[in-house]
């Protein structure tokens, strides 16, 4: 099954390889969610969404639907993030 950003649990990370087309795609890319970027899920809002992601040194909160449009592969590196 495909891994998407919304499938990352808190503390997990991955590398973006593709974004689904859609109205939000350009904005997400402008914020740094581009293929090849490393991303980590940091924490969630009380109801489970939105979630806060660490991307290129900044923390951006996304709703589940938008996070679900970003496809990932697992990050193989063992870098300590937090």
């Amino acid at each position, binding site marked *: 099954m495909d891994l998407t950003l919304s499938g990352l649990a808190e503390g997990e990370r991955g590398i973006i390889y593709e974004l689904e087309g859609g109205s939000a795609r*350009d904005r997400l890319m402008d914020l740094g969610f581009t293929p090849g970027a490393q991303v*980590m899920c940091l924490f969630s809002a009380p109801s489970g969404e939105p979630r806060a992601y660490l991307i290129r040194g*900044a*923390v951006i909160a996304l709703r589940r639907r938008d996070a679900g449009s970003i496809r990932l592969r697992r990050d193989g590196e063992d870098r300590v993030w937090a």
Partner: protein
Amino acid sequence: MGLTYTSTGAGARLSAAPESRAQVRAALAGNPNVGKSTVFNGLTGLHQHTGNWSGKTVTSAAGTYEYEGRRYALTDIPGAYSLRAASAEEAAARDFILFGGADLIVVVCDAGALERNLSLALQIMEVTPRVILAVNMMDEAKKRGIVVDTARLSAALGVPVVPMAARRGRGFEELRCAIADFRPPEYAYVTRFSETVERAVNILEMPLFNALEGMCDPRFAALRLLEGDKATLMAIEEHLGRPLAELPGVGEALERAREALAGSGLGEEDVKAELITGLYKASESIVAGAVTGRGGYDAGQLRVDRLLTRRKTALPLMLATLALVFYITVAGANAPSDALHALFEWAGARLDGALMAAHAPDVLRDAIVAGVWRVLGYVISVMLPPMAIFFPMFTLLEDLGYLPRVAFNLDACFRRAGACGKQCLTMAMGFGCNAAGVVGCRIIDSRRERLIAVLTNSLVPCNGRFPILIALITMFLVTAEGVWGHILSAAALTGFILLGVGATLTLSAILSGTLLRGEPSSPTLELPPFRRPKIGEVIVRSALDRTLFVLGRAAAAAAPAGLIIWLAANIPAPGGTVLTAITGALDPAGRALGMDGVILTAFILGLPANETVIPIMIMAYAASGTFQGMESTAQLHALLAANGWTWVTAVCTGIFTVLHWPCATTLLTIKKETGSAGWAALAALLPTVMGAALCALIAAGARLLG
């Protein structure tokens, strides 16, 4: 990718400038939350004003400073993530960068998130090479293990780079110096894309260069045409006066360029994705050559973040923070209010004496002292202390970074109401002043969701209405004294605020199900790191920016209101005075809403500024037709009780205070922001209907229960 000679010919204007005495126009651009306003404040000091730029409804701060005998005019452009504007603010930023006529643009960057910040800088460099990079927050980044080599960065980009730690006051001299010494760079970095895209750009660049005549960088225009960035193209064409495709040779070249791209299987959307990815790749490679350390997320910060957003702790912490802020406001405002009141009474007596000594006619003396002066004194003594306490505390929370977390926590509630979590931030601005809150709605990207936020903003009681609520609570709803009384008062005030929040969510849901139907957008909310607030600066800023501004406006409305009320209460009409005639006519409606004619009249006459509602009530109740002043809350309580007030009256008046039409300034702002008087009328109608319905329900219930 690499260094390329840029020869747009646009550099000629500034190169002559150092000899001339004309002032240099610089602009500050950058992502949101990079300390742009700290840099702006640090450069201009107090020499700033808020102004509209070229008739657009966009407020950007402008200021001036002198350096080595020359004058510099500085414009603070709204924060933007990209020139592909997603919000009204970003569109304003893009338009200023394209056509604002600045001699140079200082791009302020966060050293800790340089890849993203640099992608904006590279976009701006597509428009003009006259850029200085100010890499701010070097100190914070260093703490996270990120070290930026600004010399290497400058070498890679071909433009001056200044390291800064603006919150600590570092880097300002260097920045002033860099601005003063600025020369258009001979070589500036140009982001290069794939061969296919570059070939298409080549086809367009020459015809555009000939046709645009320096009005806009041809490469920038070519890229926008190829990716089909309609908003930016419209901005260029509006400035140009006709469609780009109608320029000689451009339409034909565009067709050829598109064919070439299509031959490689690239449509507009693919080009756009390649351009954004290309900017980030360029940004990554520049950062890789100039920055060491990647910096993760601070472990302590993560613990605090999780505590603030956990299911079990988030809501209690938010409520506790709100209640604490109110507690401090209520408890702290009493003594200074009394002192100010005494001061105004004393000065009023002196004024009265002086007028008597000057043999002023009794009518004039009475109108000035009992009308204008008393109302002014009431408004200031009741308004100033809570504002002076509340504003700095709220600014502190803002500065600390807590407010975006609140928006994050509540986003789900707003999503269910078909709105955007950022509405929380505009509501928080509304606490201070609803007009400011309405302007703040520009941060919301989707037009539909922005309108919802604009129409519901006045459901959050502004600082002009807080004192009304506090007065009602302490007189009729909370009888306990001392600390316990303050705690109960804070709880009651929190209750009224929650009523406003509930009404906001309800109305948002109704609007997004009816008039403003549509898909929920994809809001993206940045959560900046927690920062230790600069307490001194916060107090000065909130005193200057907010307290004085709001107070000045209130006082400006209160003085004429005092005169009008005095006249209405003293001009005879059949069966009494003009004022009693009005309040008598409104009495049945007022009673049906659990209030009376006087209260309703006060709300209507309070349209210019809600601060005047209570003094108007007191004047209308007082038999002599002049405001008696009030030495103590007990006196006011006695006056109201004698006029039939019960706790039901107080609750209904409180509800109507939260839920009624916005003040005149806010309505005008809504008209300006939405471009339509219809939306402003709706913004007045909807809360009023809600408030009236709720009050009528409570009044009917109270009558049934006897």
